[in-house]
C-alpha cells in the first residue's frame, strides 16, 4: 500500500471512531444524560455507571457521549463554514486585487480588532445563548484566519509561472482559482483547518464554561468541566473524563490533518524509490588509486588535492558528491573546473576552504595541501576550526556566485572590506578604510572614496561582484576560488568581470592562483590556462585549455563542446546540434562502471562494468575513458552523426 495512505488510515479510523461514539450515543448507553438522582451524587464508577456520576447523580458516560455531539458539531460546523467563507474571500481578494482585496483585508482587520470574548458576549447578548449562536460566533471568529492564509498564499501563487501558463491557455479566472491555485495552497489551509477545529472545541468549552454557550441541563464537554471544577477537591474523576475526551479529540484531528496534507502533496512521498536508489549507491565502489599525470606543477603548487572524497549523509544513506578527485593549482595559474549541476564542482571549491556544509557533508578521504604565503604546506583536512579561520581570507579566499547574498546588507561595503583586512592585519579603523578604498580602485570601482560608504543594495550586481573580489583580495591570498562568479551577471558586465580577473593576474599579483568554477565553456576559453572537466563527482578529463578544446579525449567533453550552437560564419550554415542524450543522473542514481556510459555514444558493454581510471596520455593531459585512444580528432565524425540522430528523436 502507498505509505501515505498507510499513515492516513489509522488516523482516519480514530477520528471516525470519535465521531461514531458521538453519533451513536443513544445506542451505546441507555442512561439518560439529564436524569438526576441527587442521592447518588459524585458516585465513583460502578456496574451501572461505568464512569461514575456527577454532582446531580447524572451518568457521566452518557453526558460525555451526548456532550460530544454538541461539542463536535459546533466545532466542525464552525471550522468548515469559516473555511468556506474565509478561503473564498482570500482567493478572490488575492487573485483579483482592487476592491475585492480591500474588502477581504479590511473585513479581516475589523473582525480581528475585536477581542474574541467581547465579540462572543455581544452576539450572545443579542441572540441569546445556545449551540446555534455558538456556531455563528465561532464562524465569525475563525473566518479571518482562513482569509489571511488564503489571501497571502494566493498573492504569492498568482505570480507563479504555472498560473500564467493557465491564463495563456485561456483558462477562466474561476478555473484558475479553484483548479490551479486552490490545490496548491491546500497545505497551509488544511493545517489551518486542523488548528481551527482544535481551537473551536476548546473555545466552545470555554464559552460554555462561562455560561455563554450550551444551556444546562443539556450536556457539553465545556459544561461538564465547569461543573466538575467545583467538586474537584472531593472528586477529581468527573473532571478527568471530559478533559481526556477533549485532549484525545484535538490530537486525533491534528494528526489526521497532517496526514491529509501529505496526501495532497505529490512531492511528499515516493520514499521507496529513493531508498532503493540509496541502497544501490552504498554498493558503489570507492574510487581506487587515481594515477595522476606526472607533468603536474606539483612542486610549486598553491594547492594540491589528492584522492578527495566528499560524502553527504541523506535519510537514505550516504552518497559521494566528490569521489576520488586529485588536482593541483600552480603558482599564478588559472584552472577552470567545468561541469553541469550535480557534478560536484562547487563542493571541490568549498572543500579548499573547508566550507563543506555540515553536519551532513564531510570529507571522508583524501588530503588537501595548501601552501601558505610563508611557504609552509598546511594539511587542510586535519586543521581544526580555529586554525582554519586563520587560513581563510589570508591564504585562500572565495568569491561566490550571488554577491547580494554573500555581502551583509546592513553594513556599508567599505566597512566589510575593512573588517576582512583587520582580521588578518594589525590595522586601525582609519588605515583599514584607506586600504579598502585602494582595493575598490583596484577592482575598478569609480569614485571609490565615495562608493566605500554605499550599502550593497545601492550597488548594481556587477559592482557588488567587484566588492566581493576586493574582499577576497584584501589579504593578498595565494589562491582565490571563484564559484560561478559571472553566472548571475549580464553579458556585458560578465565581460567586465572577466577582464578584471585577467587584469589582476597580468598586472597585479602574478603569483595569484585562481580556481574558476563555471559551467560556461566560453568563459573557460577566455580565462583559464588549464581545465578540469567534471562529471558525477569525478574529473573525467584534464589538460591545457587549448589542447582540450581542440582535441577532447573524453566523450563527455566532446559532447559539451559540440552542443554549443555555432553558425558557420562564412556560409551561414547551421549544423544540427549534437546533443548529449539523457540527463545527468541524480545523486542516488549514479550508474555502475563509467558514470557517463548510459549517455555515451562510444559506450561498449565493458563501460558499464569496468570503472575507468584517469589515464595520462600526454604531458599534462589525462582522461577517464576506456576508449580514449579511439577518440582522435578524425575518429569522431561518424559517431557524432549517430548522436544527432538519437538526440533528435
Amino acid at each position, binding site marked *: 500500500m502507498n505509505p501515505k495512505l498507510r499513515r492516513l488510515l489509522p488516523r482516519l479510523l480514530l477520528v471516525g471512531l470519535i465521531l461514531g461514539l458521538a453519533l451513536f450515543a443513544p445506542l451505546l448507553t441507555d442512561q439518560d444524560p439529564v436524569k438526576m438522582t441527587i442521592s447518588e451524587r459524585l458516585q465513583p464508577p460502578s456496574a451501572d455507571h461505568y464512569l461514575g456520576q456527577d454532582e446531580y447523580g447524572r451518568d457521566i458516560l452518557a453526558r460525555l457521549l451526548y456532550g460530544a455531539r454538541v461539542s463536535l458539531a459546533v466545532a466542525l460546523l464552525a471550522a468548515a463554514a469559516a473555511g468556506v467563507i474565509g478561503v473564498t474571500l482570500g482567493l478572490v481578494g488575492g487573485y483579483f486585487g482592487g476592491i475585492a482585496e480591500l474588502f477581504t483585508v479590511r473585513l479581516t482587520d475589523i473582525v480581528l480588532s475585536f477581542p474574541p470574548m467581547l465579540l462572543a458576549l455581544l452576539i450572545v447578548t443579542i441572540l441569546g445563548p445556545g449551540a446555534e449562536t455558538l456556531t455563528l460566533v465561532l464562524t465569525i471568529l475563525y473566518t479571518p484566519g482562513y482569509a489571511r492564509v488564503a489571501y497571502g498564499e494566493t498573492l504569492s501563487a498568482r505570480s507563479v*509561472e*504555472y498560473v*500564467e*501558463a*493557465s491564463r*495563456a*491557455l*485561456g*483558462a*477562466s479566472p474561476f*478555473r484558475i482559482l479553484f483548479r490551479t491555485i486552490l*490545490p*496548491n495552497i491546500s497545505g497551509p489551509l488544511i493545517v489551518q483547518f486542523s488548528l481551527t477545529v482544535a481551537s473551536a472545541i476548546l473555545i466552545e468549552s470555554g464559552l460554555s464554561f462561562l455560561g455563554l454557550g450550551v444551556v444546562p441541563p443539556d450536556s457539553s464537554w465545556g459544561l461538564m468541566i465547569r461543573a466538575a471544577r467545583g467538586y474537584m477537591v472531593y472528586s477529581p474523576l468527573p473532571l478527568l473524563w471530559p478533559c481526556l475526551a477533549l485532549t484525545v479529540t484535538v490530537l486525533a484531528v491534528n494528526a489526521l490533518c497532517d496526514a491529509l496534507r501529505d496526501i*495532497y*502533496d*505529490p512531492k511528499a512521498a*515516493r520514499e521507496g524509490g529513493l531508498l532503493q536508489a540509496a541502497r544501490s549507491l552504498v554498493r558503489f565502489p570507492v574510487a581506487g588509486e587515481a594515477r595522476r599525470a606526472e607533468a603536474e606543477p606539483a612542486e610549486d603548487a598553491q594547492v594540491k588535492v589528492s584522492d578527495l572524497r566528499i560524502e553527504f549523509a541523506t535519510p537514505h544513506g550516504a552518497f559521494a558528491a566528490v569521489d576520488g578527485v586529485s588536482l593541483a593549482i600552480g603558482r599564478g595559474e588559472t584552472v577552470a573546473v567545468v561541469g*553541469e*549541476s550535480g557534478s560536484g564542482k562547487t563542493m571541490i571549491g568549498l572543500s579548499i576552504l573547508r566550507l563543506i556544509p555540515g553536519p551532513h557533508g564531510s570529507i571522508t578521504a583524501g588530503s588537501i595541501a595548501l601552501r601558505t604565503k610563508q611557504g609552509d604546506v598546511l594539511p587542510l583536512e586535519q586543521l581544526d576550526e580555529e586554525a582554519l579561520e586563520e587560513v581563510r581570507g589570508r591564504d585562500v579566499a572565495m568569491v561566490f556566485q550571488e554577491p547580494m547574498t554573500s555581502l551583509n546588507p546592513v553594513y556599508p561595503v567599505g566597512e566589510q572590506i575593512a573588517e576582512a583586512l583587520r582580521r588578518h592585519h594589525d590595522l586601525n579603523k582609519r588605515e583599514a578604510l584607506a586600504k579598502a578604498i585602494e582595493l575598490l580602485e583596484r577592482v575598478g570601482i569609480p569614485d571609490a572614496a565615495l562608493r566605500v560608504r554605499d550599502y550593497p543594495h545601492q550597488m*548594481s550586481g*556587477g*559592482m557588488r561582484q567587484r566588492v566581493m573580489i576586493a574582499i577576497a583580495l584584501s589579504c593578498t591570498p595565494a589562491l582565490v576560488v571563484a564559484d560561478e562568479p559571472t553566472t548571475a551577471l*549580464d*553579458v*556585458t*558586465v*560578465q*565581460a*567586465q568581470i*572577466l*577582464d578584471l580577473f585577467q587584469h589582476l593576474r597580468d598586472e597585479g599579483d602574478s603569483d595569484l592562483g585562481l580556481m574558476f568554477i563555471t*559551467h*560556461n*565553456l*566560453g568563459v*573557460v*576559453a*577566455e580565462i583559464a590556462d588549464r581545465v578540469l572537466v567534471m562529471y558525477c563527482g569525478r574529473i573525467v578529463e584534464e589538460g591545457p585549455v*587549448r589542447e582540450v*578544446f*581542440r582535441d577532447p579525449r573524453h566523450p*563527455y567533453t566532446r559532447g*559539451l563542446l*559540440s*552542443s*554549443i*550552437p*555555432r*553558425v558557420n*560564419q562564412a556560409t551561414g550554415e*547551421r549544423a544540427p*546540434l*549534437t*546533443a*548529449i*542524450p539523457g*540527463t*545527468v543522473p541524480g545523486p542516488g542514481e549514479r550508474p555502475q562502471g563509467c558514470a557517463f556510459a548510459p*549517455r555515451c555514444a562510444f559506450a561498449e558493454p565493458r563501460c558499464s562494468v569496468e570503472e575507468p581510471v584517469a589515464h595520462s596520455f600526454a604531458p599534462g593531459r589525462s582522461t577517464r575513458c576506456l576508449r580514449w585512444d579511439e577518440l582522435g580528432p578524425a575518429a569522431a565524425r561518424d559517431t557524432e552523426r549517430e548522436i544527432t540522430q538519437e*538526440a533528435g528523436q
Partner: protein
Amino acid sequence: MTTSGNAPATTIVEARDLTKRFRASGGGWGRRAQVHAVEQVDITLAPGEVVGLVGESGSGKSTLGRLMLRLIEPTEGRIRFEGEDITDWSQGRLRPLRRRMQIIFQDPYSSLDPRKTVAGLIGEAFAIHKLYSRRERRERTVALLERVGLSADHLERFPHEFSGGQRQRLGIARALAVEPRFIVADEPVSALDVSVQAQIINLMAGLQRDLNLALLFISHDLSVVEYISDRVMVMYLGRIMEEAPARDLYTKPRHPYTEALLSAAPVPEPDVERKRIILEGDLPSPMDPPSGCVFRTRCPYALPACAEAPPPLREVAPGHRTACIRDDVL
C-alpha cells in the same frame, strides 16, 4: 473591429508603438515613479518566422513577449493578431484566441503545476477549450508526449519526478496541445544544463519547422539566438536598438550596442584572439532612462547630439534597421 487591408498571410502578429510603463512602488515626492519597461516598439512576425529577441536583464524583452500575448496590458500601442486588432478585447473575448498563441517559460520548475500529473497538465489545455472526447484527449496527450521525446509511461507522473530538460519538454507539449500558430518562448533553455540545452534547441527547431510556427525566441544567449532565428531584434532599456536578418546582424552589426554585445559574449574557441569591447558601467535604471538615445551613457561613440531625441529605427540595408545616428563608425 476593423480588419486591416493587408493580406493576413504575410503577418501573423503585429504590434505598433507598443509601450508599457509599470508604476514603481515607493516613487516618493509627488511624482509617481514609472518603470519604462517597453517604449514604442514595433514588431511583426510572419507565419512560420523565427524572430530572436536579445537583450540583457532589464531590457524589457520578457515584458514585450507577454504584451504581445496580452498577458500584460499595454500602456500604449496596438496589437493585431491574424489581422484583427485585439488591443481592446476583453480577456473573455480573447479566451478562444489563446488556442492560437502560446508561451513557453524559462523556469521548468515553476512553470508546471506541481499538483497535477502529466495527463492533467496537458489535458487542461483540452479541457479549457472543450476539445475532443475523453479518449481522444488521452490519445492526443500521448501523441504530444511522444512528439517531445517522452512517452505514455509518463502520463501519471508528477512534475517533480522529471529532470529539468524533461520538464521543459512538458512545457513545450502543453504549449503545443492547443495547436497554436504563434509561440513566445521566454528564455526556454537558460535554466538548463549545457548538455541538455542542445536537446531542447534541436527539439524546438524541429517542431517549429514541422508545424510552421511563428516563434518569438527571447534569450540573452547570443549564440542560441543566432542558431535558431531568421531575424534578430536587439533590445536595450525598453527600446529596439537594431533589427536585421540573423546573419547580417551577427556579421555586420550596425549599432554600437550590438557590436559590444557580440564582442562581450565569451566564445568557446581559445585559439581565436578577438578584440573585446568592454562597455563601461551598468544598465541605467529603467525608472529614469537617459534622454535621447538610451544607450548613449555607455556608448563609446556617443556625441552631444545623441542626447537630444531617441533616434528612430532607420533602414540601412534591406531588412536591416538600426537606431543610431552615427553612420560614420559602423
